């Protein structure tokens, strides 16, 4: 799947727009999909787009070849519709990214990965980094048990730390957290494409 300049310029305008959208999705997917095995449900939802399906097939093939080197972090299963705990994920500007459902005991990092939310987890949930930092809605933050020393040590180094910040890998869902909002912090990765968001068609 290459998007060389020559290839793009030979497309019709409509095709080029579709390719642009797919390029973005593929970029997001490629960064996400290689590291974490998608659940069956997310595979089904993504195969509606044939471009993504090809990408996934390639990815799945390479996983079969190298499955022993790819570790999975806290796989979660999706609850039956209407039975789960609702969590809203927002971007750093407060725009809703996705509203998802999780089960009691699921941690926020695993849920983010299950639903393709852009939350990094470099140390795979072992409280050795700060990349899964999220900002919790204040009333729900108060319901969470206090962070341990090791989590607080990592939060010390998190970008855009707030009074209701937690490491996503340490926040586990309970029924009383229904409706919680997790906002991604403000440290921008996309320093050059911020403000140049593509228009969706």
């Amino acid at each position, binding site marked *: 799947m290459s998007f060389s300049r020559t290839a793009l310029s030979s497309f019709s305008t409509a095709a080029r727009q579709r390719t642009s959208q797919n*390029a973005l999705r593929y970029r997001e997917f490629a960064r996400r999909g*290689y*590291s974490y095995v998608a659940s069956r449900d997310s595979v089904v939802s993504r195969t509606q787009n044939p471009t993504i399906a090809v990408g996934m097939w390639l990815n799945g093939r390479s*996983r079969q070849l190298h499955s022993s*080197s790819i570790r999975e972090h806290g796989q979660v299963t999706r609850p039956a519709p209407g039975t789960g705990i609702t969590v809203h994920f927002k971007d750093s500007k407060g725009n809703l990214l996705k509203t998802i459902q999780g089960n009691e005991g699921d941690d926020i990092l695993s849920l983010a990965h299950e639903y393709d939310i852009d939350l990094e987890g470099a*140390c795979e949930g072992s409280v050795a*980094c*700060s*990349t899964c930092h999220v900002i919790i809605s204040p009333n729900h933050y108060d319901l969470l048990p206090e962070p341990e020393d090791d989590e607080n040590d990592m939060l010390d*180094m998190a970008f855009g730390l707030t009074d209701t910040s937690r490491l996503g890998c340490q926040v586990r869902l309970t029924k009383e957290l229904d409706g919680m909002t997790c906002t991604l912090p403000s440290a921008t990765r996309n320093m050059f494409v911020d403000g140049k968001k593509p228009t969706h068609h």
Partner: protein
Amino acid sequence: MYDRLWAPHGLVRYGVAPDHPEVKNCTHKFDAAATDPRFKFFGNVNIASSSEPSPIPHSFNIALSKLLPHYTHLLLASGCTIPNPHPLIPYSSYVIPALSLVHWYTDHPAAAGSPPPPLHKTKHVTVIGNGNVALDVARMLLSTPERLGRYDVPAHVLDVLARSQVRHVSVVGRRGPTQAAFTAKELREMMNLEGTSFVPLDPSMIQQAEEGPKLERQQKRILDLLKKGSAQKPGETEKSWDLSFFRSPVGIQLATDGDNSDYPVTLNLAHTTLSPTNSAVPTGIHSEQPTSLVVTALGHHADPNTPWYDPSTGHVRNEAGQVLDSNGKIVKRVYTSGWAGIGARGVLATTMMNAYSVGDRILSETYPEAFNSDITESASDGIAVLPTEVNVDAVPAEIEKAVQEGKITTYEDWRAIDAEEVRRGQETGKERERLSWDEVNNFLHKSSA
């Protein structure tokens, strides 16, 4: 990806302290990315732009000019590999950079021929610096083979630690606890280190820090840790350590009995205080610290031979990842990320964020249509050192030949060696046992270079 070391992963393998294995989980992502058929790794390749000899004796050397015609884009991610020396304490057999210890305990190829630190005749170590590297080194020097045995610590390192006479480590910094760059996690580990006690700080020093300007969250937590100290007090344990704040080393001399003494060198320390702008200024008072070994942990800068190196910053000249030449002109399609671009600072998350942003920049400038971006190559005025079209499947002939001759390692080689290191480690109940370059060659059934 060209790496001067035969194994990939850089500082994750050769910098992260062995007793912090969870930090190394990020290598799973690297391994996954390496499965992409478009990715090629060439290890043990020293890319030179000068006639400086490679620090790795067995590396395959190639000039940058030989590689440039084969690629449309170039990313420099070669880090900051040169330790900052202390201006007044020159290196000697008694004064070594912390990096040499880190290379020793991570089995770095550049340290392969070097003698280990003489810990069997070292009683007292002075570490100059107040960052995490200073604490990592202090912790390793005060650790026993029993504590470290299950981690990724080479057997020869455990042997040296088994015969170590180190009883005290003094961590010296020219400013105070509020300015210290180490983080709470590393400080907590030092306070909890088994068999080691912390010499309590003068309470007035902590009081002054607390009454000073408003403290950040991390600084408050560090002061709390300093106040609390270690569970055991000096005298109760065989080993101890201290934080000597507001001490600036200004000279060193051999002790009168020299080598025969347990403390063969003496450091001259100028006492300091903080100026209104928070810099260290001398008070006029001096003291002396007898010691056996001095370790400087004062940060790093990039190798000055790195292309487009900027001596005024100590890393590659760039603007948000776009490399600039000495006239400030853009070097087209040449980028830099990580410590090579931002200097030696930050934790893993910092470098990761930077890598993502530079990666996004490369993509958005190369495929502006896909990003609805206005930035195109023609819009930028700069110098060109790379071709615009290449055969993407071709590998430079010299590299291809060296791979076939076993002088260059591929990622597949790495996966095989990775598995073998883990297998050998299992024999002695440890995370992995490192292979030397000779062992790598024997294992891969290739002739050595």
